[in-house]
């Protein structure tokens, strides 16, 4: 097994675990954790393809991950702020109880 | 300007730091076990029982009235009253404490026992180095450990002790006078038919008191 495919395997495993978290938990914070894991899996892919790709000196993968980390930080901040705000109104972080928009 | 105060403070502490090496007067610390500060007269630490005279058993002022036991906030006093009586400081026959225990480790030096004692029997001591190796019961003091002579009281709180002694002497004098008056009344109460030869017996009673 080449290092690249093992990296990709790890990444897909991480992605699946994050996806499982998103699908199977109902706590908004845990869902956010799952999303973070999926994002990290994507970052790992970028790094792996940069490392074993054809033009590593272009640094495209590294740059992409830098920006992705920045976006992830912003996303986490806004997401958590939303969770806090929702919690303040509905006193819960379980997403299936946040159903005031339901018809 | 921001930071001026900080600079001033730093200079002050630096002066303290250097000055403490130069000027011994700055150092207020007392090297305790070797040096000690004289205790103020009003020092109060833990209670003790006062006795008069030489024999602590006989001279104990406490009459076992248990007022202090009831008043003690942390309930550290334990008293068992005696069944027999013996004469107290004034000379009246009184009960005495068969058992008088104070758990010093519980005592909080509040001095309420002293305030409520009508007999000036319990006072505050100035001893504070009370460590023991005994973890349980080492600080549970019984009557024998608690009893201290009146002289000790005079040593640690001279003014207060003098005042107490004066008051006790007054009371005793008053009691004497009262007894004398009672005796005289008794003497004068019988009809004049009684011959005046009777007084010697009376005077003998009064002299014993």
């Amino acid at each position, binding site marked *: 097994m*080449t290092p690249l495919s093992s990296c990709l395997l790890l990444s897909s495993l991480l992605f699946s675990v994050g996806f499982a978290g998103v699908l199977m938990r109902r706590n908004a914070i845990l869902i956010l954790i799952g999303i973070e894991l999926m994002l990290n899996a994507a970052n790992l892919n970028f790094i792996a393809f940069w490392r074993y790709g054809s033009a590593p000196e272009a640094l495209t993968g590294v740059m992409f991950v*830098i920006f992705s980390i920045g976006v992830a930080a912003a996303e986490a901040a806004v997401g958590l702020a939303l969770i806090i705000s929702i919690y303040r109104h509905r006193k819960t972080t379980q997403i299936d109880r946040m159903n005031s928009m339901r018809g | 300007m921001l930071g001026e105060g900080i600079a001033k403070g730093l200079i002050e502490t630096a002066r303290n730091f250097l000055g403490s090496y130069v000027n011994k007067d700055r150092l207020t610390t007392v090297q305790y076990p070797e040096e000690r500060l004289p205790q103020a007269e009003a020092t109060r630490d833990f209670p003790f029982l006062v006795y008069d005279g030489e024999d602590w058993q006989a001279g104990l002022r406490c009459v076992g009235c248990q007022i202090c036991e009831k008043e003690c906030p942390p309930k550290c006093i334990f008293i068992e009253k005696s069944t027999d009586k013996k004469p107290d400081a004034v000379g009246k026959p009184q009960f005495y404490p068969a058992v008088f225990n104070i758990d010093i480790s519980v005592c909080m030096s509040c001095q309420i026992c002293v305030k409520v004692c009508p007999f000036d029997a319990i006072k505050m001591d100035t001893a504070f180095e009370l460590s023991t190796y005994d973890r349980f019961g080492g600080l549970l003091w019984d009557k024998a450990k608690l009893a201290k002579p009146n002289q000790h009281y005079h040593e640690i709180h001279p003014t207060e002790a003098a005042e107490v002694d004066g008051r006790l002497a007054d009371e005793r004098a008053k009691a004497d006078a009262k007894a004398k008056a009672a005796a005289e009344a008794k003497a004068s109460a019988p009809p004049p038919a009684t011959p005046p030869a009777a007084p010697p017996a009376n005077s003998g009673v009064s002299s014993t008191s």
Partner: protein
Amino acid sequence: MLFTIFAALTVAGAVAAISLRNLVHSVLSLILAFAGLAAVYLLLGAQFIGFAQILVYVGAVAILIVFTILLTRNDGTFGHSSQASWNLGALIVIAVFGTLAWAIHSSTALHHAPPPQPEATMQQIGTALMVRFALPLEVIGLLLTAALIGAATIALHEKQERP
């Protein structure tokens, strides 16, 4: 060898993060996963990314999540879905992973010799950020500012709520 250890650490942390009942334990395991991933990055030669991962994810995102957990009290139920939907979810996840793994396994494009370790000095990354990727960098800066203001506004104490 090292890769296997760190990969195992990462996956273990991730699994623990999504399956533990205590949210704080979840976050701590998540930190473990992040740290493991950072180690993997270092193994792959991406030094900057590895340290940035620790700085951002461990130092900031995880702490943010912790703060959120402490600010929102759990209401007793520990967020697992009902058994049926849980099973369905598990099935789908396994399906997704299966297809991904199969795709990776069967890909022919991956079977070539690994190239030599590429250079990625700080100097190069900095130059790339300032020259070729200057515009994305500005955009990210703008995004972060917007996120900062947005998060503060959303989470701000709402005055009219108070009696």
